[in-house]
C-alpha cells in the first residue's frame, strides 16, 4: 500500500540535470566561436565514454539502465571533463578521464547520489597527474596562434596524433593564461608586463575570458531558476576576489588582480557548475558558505604558490573530503529547539 503523501510536485532529477546542461550552452558556444569546433569533438568523446562506462557499470552492478542513463548525470560529467581539458588532446585523454570518473569516482561508491567526490574533478586530477604533458597543449584563440588547423586537420590530430606536414604543435598551442602568468612571474616579469602579451585580453586570457563570461551567464540562469544554491558561488567567488584583491593591492607587480582570477581558468565554471554539484557539496546554508570560502582559499593558494596551473579541481576535491564533517558540524537549529539544546 502506498504511504502519504499522495500528491507530488512534478520536478525530477533528469529535469534538474537537463537545465544544468542548458546552462552550459552559452559557454560552449563562445568556446566554439573563439577556439574552433575541436571542443565539440572532445565533448562528444567524453560524453560517449561516460555513457558507455555508466551503462557497463550499471550492467555489472545489476541495476536498471534506463532511469540512470536518462538522468543526464553521466552526460554532465562527460561535458565537464571535456571542458576542463585541452580541446586538441588525443582522443584517449577525454575517454580515460570520463571512464575513470564514472567507474571509480561514481559507481564504486554506489552510483548517483553516493559519490563523495565530484567525478569530473577526479577525472581531471587523474589526467593532470598522469599525463601532464598532454594536458598543457591548449589551443590558442583564433587570431593569436601562428597557424590555424582546419576541422579536418584537428580531427586527424585528435585520433592519430599526427599534424599536417611542416606544422609544429607548439605553434598551434599555448599554455593557459594562468600558467603563462605563473611561468613569466618566475622569470621576473611583472603582472602588467605579462598582461600585455598577445594572449591576454581585457580581463584575462583572450577568448577564454569570454568563455568564462558565458559560463557565468549560464550560472546566473541556474541561480535565478533556483537550481543551485546562491551560497556556494557567492562564497567561492567572493573569497577569491577578496584574497586576490588584498594581495593585488599590496603588491600589484606580483599578484594578478581579482577580475583576472575570476575570468581565467576554471573559476566561473567551477563556481556555478562544479562546486554546486549537490551530491558532493554540503547541505546546510552555513556549510555551503564554509565550503565556498574553503574552495576559494585553496584555489587562490594553489594558483599563486602551488605547482599546478589551476587550483579549482584540487580545491574542489579537497573540500569534497570535508563535506561530511561540515554537514555534521553545521546542523541548523530545528523548530522548537534552542541553539544550545542541539546535541
Amino acid at each position, binding site marked *: 500500500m502506498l504511504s*502519504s503523501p499522495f500528491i507530488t510536485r512534478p520536478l525530477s532529477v533528469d529535469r534538474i540535470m537537463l537545465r544544468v546542461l542548458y546552462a552550459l550552452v552559452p559557454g560552449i558556444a563562445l568556446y566554439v566561436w573563439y577556439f574552433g569546433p575541436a571542443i565539440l569533438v572532445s565533448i562528444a568523446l567524453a560524453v560517449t565514454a561516460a555513457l558507455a562506462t555508466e551503462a557497463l557499470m550499471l550492467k555489472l552492478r545489476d541495476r536498471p539502465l534506463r532511469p540512470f542513463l536518462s538522468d543526464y548525470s553521466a552526460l554532465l560529467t562527460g561535458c565537464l571533463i571535456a571542458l576542463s581539458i585541452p580541446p586538441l588532446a588525443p582522443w584517449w585523454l577525454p575517454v580515460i578521464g570520463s571512464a575513470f570518473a564514472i567507474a571509480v569516482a561514481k559507481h564504486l561508491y554506489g552510483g548517483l*547520489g553516493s559519490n563523495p567526490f565530484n567525478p569530473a574533478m577526479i577525472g581531471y586530477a587523474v589526467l593532470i597527474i598522469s599525463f601532464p604533458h598532454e594536458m598543457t597543449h591548449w589551443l590558442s584563440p583564433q587570431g593569436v596562434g601562428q597557424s590555424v588547423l582546419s576541422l579536418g586537420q584537428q580531427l586527424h590530430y585528435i585520433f592519430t596524433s599526427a599534424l599536417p606536414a611542416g606544422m609544429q604543435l607548439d605553434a598551434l598551442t599555448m599554455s593557459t593564461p594562468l600558467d603563462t602568468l605563473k611561468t613569466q612571474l618566475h622569470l621576473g616579469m611583472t603582472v602588467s608586463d605579462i598582461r600585455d602579451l598577445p594572449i591576454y585580453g581585457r580581463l584575462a586570457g583572450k577568448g577564454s575570458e569570454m568563455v568564462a563570461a558565458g559560463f557565468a551567464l549560464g550560472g546566473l540562469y541556474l541561480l535565478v531558476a533556483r537550481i543551485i544554491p546562491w551560497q556556494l558561488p557567492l562564497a567561492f567567488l567572493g573569497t577569491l576576489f577578496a584574497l586576490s584583491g588584498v594581495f593585488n593591492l599590496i603588491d600589484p607587480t606580483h599578484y594578478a588582480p581579482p577580475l583576472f582570477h575570476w575570468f581565467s581558468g576554471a573559476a566561473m565554471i567551477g563556481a556555478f557548475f562544479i562546486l554546486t554539484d*549537490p551530491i558532493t557539496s554540503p547541505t546546510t546554508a552555513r556549510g555551503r558558505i564554509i565550503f565556498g570560502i574553503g574552495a576559494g582559499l585553496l584555489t587562490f593558494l594553489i594558483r599563486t604558490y602551488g605547482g599546478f596551473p589551476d587550483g579549482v579541481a584540487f580545491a574542489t576535491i579537497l573540500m569534497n573530503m570535508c563535506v561530511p564533517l561540515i554537514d555534521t558540524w553545521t546542523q541548523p537549529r530545528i523548530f522548537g529547539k534552542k541553539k544550545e539544546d542541539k546535541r
Partner: protein
Amino acid sequence: MIRLHRFHGGIHPPTHKAESTRTPIMSAPLPAQLTIPFRQHAGEAAKPVVQVGERVLKGQLIGEPVGAISSSIHAPTSGTITAIDLQQIAHPSALPDLCATLVPDGLDEWGVRQTLSYRQLSSDELQKHLRRSGIVGLGGAVFPSDMKLRHPIVVDTLVINGAECEPYITCDDMLMRERAEAIVRGIEILRHALGTDAVLIGIEDNKPQAISAMQRAVDDSSHPFKVIAVPTVYPGGSAKHLIKVLTGVEVPSGKLPTDVGVQCYNVATAYAVHRAVEHGETLVSRVVTVTGNVEQPRNYEALIGTPFSDLVALSIPKADTNRYIMGGPMMGVELPAVNVPLVKASNCVIAASDALFPPPPAAMPCIRCTRCAQVCPVELQPQDLYWFAQSHNFGKAQEYDLFDCIECGACAYVCPSSIPLVQYYRYAKSEIRARDHEKRAADLARERHEFRQFRIEREKQEKAERLAQKERAAAAAKAAAEAAAAIPTPLEPNADAEDTQQMRIDAALARAKEQAATAHPRNTEALTPEQRAEIEAIEVRRAHIHSLAADAGADDEPPKNSQGN
C-alpha cells in the same frame, strides 16, 4: 491588528477546496449497520460496557475509558448491539481491531442528555464531563480533550485552529460557515475552563466566507475573541506552527503547547464541546468531507461508525475510482477497504483514481538537492534522515531529531527523486519504538531475574537458619526424651498446646532421630570385618557428600540420611 509570524518552509499544493464547498453540509441518512471501534482516540482503547444483544440508546456509553489518557465511546444511534469482535478499521496496517456492531432500530432515540451550565462549572467538572462525553481533538490527532484541561496548567492564550491547511478537506470550513455561533459558544466554554482572556482564532486566508462568518459570530457574542486570517501555507494547520504564526512562540521540541502558556483546540472540537455541554450530546457524529473523484463532492454530518462505502455512494464515485484515502492527500491513509467505519479522526475521505493521484514514478537515489530541507516546517534535514533511515542507522537518525518530524509530507511532495521519504521516517520511527520497547522489557526482565535470585538466596539463608534452629530444638527434645526414657509419651501434649506446624515437624524429626538412634546398633551387629571396612568407606564418602551438600546450602534434611541403607 495582531502581528503575524512566519515559520520556515512549507509548500503550496493546489487546494481543491472549492469543489466540496458549493453545497451546504448534508445530514447523512441512517445506515443499515454501524461499526464502532473502541480505539478512536490517542491512548488506551476504551473497555466495552455493553453486552451483545443489548439495546442501546443514542448517546449511551458503550465503552468506558481505561487509564489516564483515554476517552469514552458511545452508541451513535438507538438500536441493538449484535456483535463485539475484531473488525477491519481505517488503519494503514489493515489489521482488525475491537469494534461493536450496532444495528439501528430507526428510532434514533436519545438516552439521557445531561446539560450543564458552564458558568457554574469548575474546570474539574467540565473535564470529567468531556471525558464522559468522549470529546477528543477532531483535527486529526484525536487527543482526549479533557487532558488538555488537566491541572496544573497555566494558559494565557487559547488558540483555536481553523486553519485546515490540507488540500481537499473542507469540513472545518463548512462548519465555520454554517455553525459559527455554536463554535463561538464552545470556544467560550473552553476559555472559561482554562481561565484565559486572550483567544486567537486562526483561519487560513483562503476561506474568506468562514472568516467573515466567524467574525460575525464573535461580534454578535461580544466576546473579545480575535479572528485572524493567517497566510495559506501547508502545514500551517499544525498546532505548533499555528501557535508560532499567531503568537511568535515556538513550542519547545518534545514539549506541549501548555509549557509555553498556550492551548490549542480545533474548531470542530469547540463545536463538539458546545454540543456536549449545552445540549448534553455525547460525540456520536461529525462533519466529514467526501471529495475527489466523485460526482457530487460535499460535506456530510455522519454518525460515527457509518461505513465509508455508504458516504461515498451518496456522492456517486466516478467509474475509474480505484482506491480511497481517509484524511487529506498529504497525511491521509489509504483505506484497506471502503466499508471500514467512520471514526472520530475521519475529517475527509477522498475517492482516488490514477488520473487524479498518479502513482509516483520509481524512486531515484537522493541527490542531496535539499529541496526537502527548504520546505521542512520543522527545519530538519530530511535528506540526512533519509540517508540514515534507508541504511537502518537508527541511532544517527534519532540524533538528527527524527522524532521531531511531524510527517507532514512536504519533503516527499517536492522530492525530485520521488523518494517516499515519509514512509522511511515512519519505518525508522516504529523500529526505534519497537527497540525501545524491547529494551525496557529486557531491563524489566533483568530486574525481575535479579530480584528472583536475591529472593532464592534469601530463602536459602532463611531455610538454613530454620534448619539450625530445628537441630537445636531436636537436640533439646532428644535430651528430654532420654530423660523421660521410661515414660514413652514424649511430646504430644506440648505439640497440641503450641499448635504450630513447626513444633510438629520438630517432633517428627525428633522421632525419626530416636528411631535412627535405636535402629543403628542393630544393623551393625554381627558383621564381617570386610563389611565393616566397606561401611566405613561408605560413611567417609557420605560424610564428604554431606559436607559438599552443606556447602551448597543443603536442602535435604540430615535425619533422613542417617536412616540410610
